């Protein structure tokens, strides 16, 4: 019997997730709406003065993006573990980390990418200047990508735990703090007229480290979750 080639297997996992999401697209829009609601809360809580909001706009957009991504991450593996798909992946003979990476990529496309697309609009509502749009988008692209992988590790560890969403946030947010620091700093620096290259390069380095080592941790975590 011929074994499925790995790119084919990844494509099948990816497509399955997109198809399932398409059938329940309201679940895809919920984190996005949460994103807009959370960013709206900041000017209501602090000041409507755009000049003052501008100073924190990069940080607020980043924090809201992190929290919205976290909301969506809790359900990442839940249904797959429940119906036995993850067991089939473990037994399939395909590299487990590769399949999980494909799933995380699909998840990112459905949650992270819409957040990144919305971020300039949301940022402008907080006074973010136009010249910072590029840096904001690039930093969020790298940041949400890394967060999807880190969140994948956390979700794999906490799948099936009661009230797992709070625990997941507790595990993932400390690991995501460097992302937040560098991402918000890059936006702040470009608003001050400096080059954001430093923090952006660090974000990219963290992203590639997560991309290469994350699947290892994720597959270890999934194996632990399905073994019992």
């Amino acid at each position, binding site marked *: 019997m011929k074994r499925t080639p790995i790119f084919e297997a990844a494509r099948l996992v990816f497509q399955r997730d997109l198809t399932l999401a398409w059938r329940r697209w309201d679940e895809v829009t919920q984190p996005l709406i949460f994103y807009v609601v959370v960013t709206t809360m900041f000017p209501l809580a602090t000041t409507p003065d755009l000049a003052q909001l501008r100073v924190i706009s990069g940080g607020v957009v980043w924090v809201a993006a992190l929290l919205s991504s976290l909301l969506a991450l809790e359900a990442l593996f839940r249904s797959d573990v429940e119906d036995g798909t993850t067991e089939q992946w473990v037994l399939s003979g395909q590299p487990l980390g590769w399949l999980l990476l494909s799933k995380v990529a699909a998840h990112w496309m459905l949650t992270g990418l819409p957040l990144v697309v919305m971020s300039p609009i949301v940022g402008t509502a907080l006074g973010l200047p136009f010249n910072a749009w590029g840096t904001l988008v690039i930093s969020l692209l790298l940041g949400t990508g890394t967060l999807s992988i880190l969140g994948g590790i956390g979700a794999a*560890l906490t799948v099936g735990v*009661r009230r*797992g969403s709070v625990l997941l946030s*507790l595990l993932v947010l400390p690991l995501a*703090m460097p992302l937040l620091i560098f991402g918000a700093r890059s936006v702040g620096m470009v608003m001050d007229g400096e080059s954001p290259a430093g923090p952006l390069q660090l974000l990219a380095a963290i992203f590639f480290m997560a991309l290469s080592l994350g699947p290892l*941790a994720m597959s*270890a975590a999934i194996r*632990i*979750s399905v073994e*019992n």
Partner: protein
Amino acid sequence: MWLWFHKLASPPHAYRLLGKMAPWFGWPALILILTATWWGLFKVPPDYQQGDAFRILYVHAPSAWMSMFTYVVMAVAAAVGLIWRIKLAHAASAACAPIGASFTFLALATGSIWGKPMWGTWWVWDARLTSELLLLFLYLGYMALRASFDEAQRADRASAVLAIVGVINVPIIHYSVQWWTTLHQPASVTKMGKPSIAAVMLVPLFLMIAGFQLYFGWAISRRLRGEILRRERNAGWLKEAS
């Protein structure tokens, strides 16, 4: 020849061994800590810049060192438990966590107390303080993850993965003062070249670190014994011994 080593993985053997070792860690630890405290408070001359207030260094620096040391021990024990499937290693990792969290909290608290009179602020969000705070969150997250599972095996292995993923933070904490401009001062001892701290001030610091390390040995012996008791409460050897 390696039987003594392999026997370490046996809970009843480890239980007996730890019980015998604990006082050998505990009493020297107490003596060293008391000596270093007296030395640091009374014998060492005041600093030319900070006066007498610098003496909190003798608690702050050793606890910060121990917070990182304990995390590495915890992560290595977790890795040993995952790779070789030794339950006692997972138990050791679990025993390390509250000790490490306490050291981290102590380092943050003493640093804050030191900071207010000396640098004018209880807290600053620079790289070292932030990454040490992150270490506290990692410890708390580890303990929370452990507590959330009912089956011991899944708790062990899941928290082991978390401990290993989080170990990246420890070199970040250590090198943070080198890589970024921080309010926290750069390394005076653990760097290349001569230590940039007077020798007369250094001796009680080393004594205190040695005392804290021995204290760690005592604390881990006691905690690991407790952990073994909890895990093996239904085992035959325990019922016979009690």
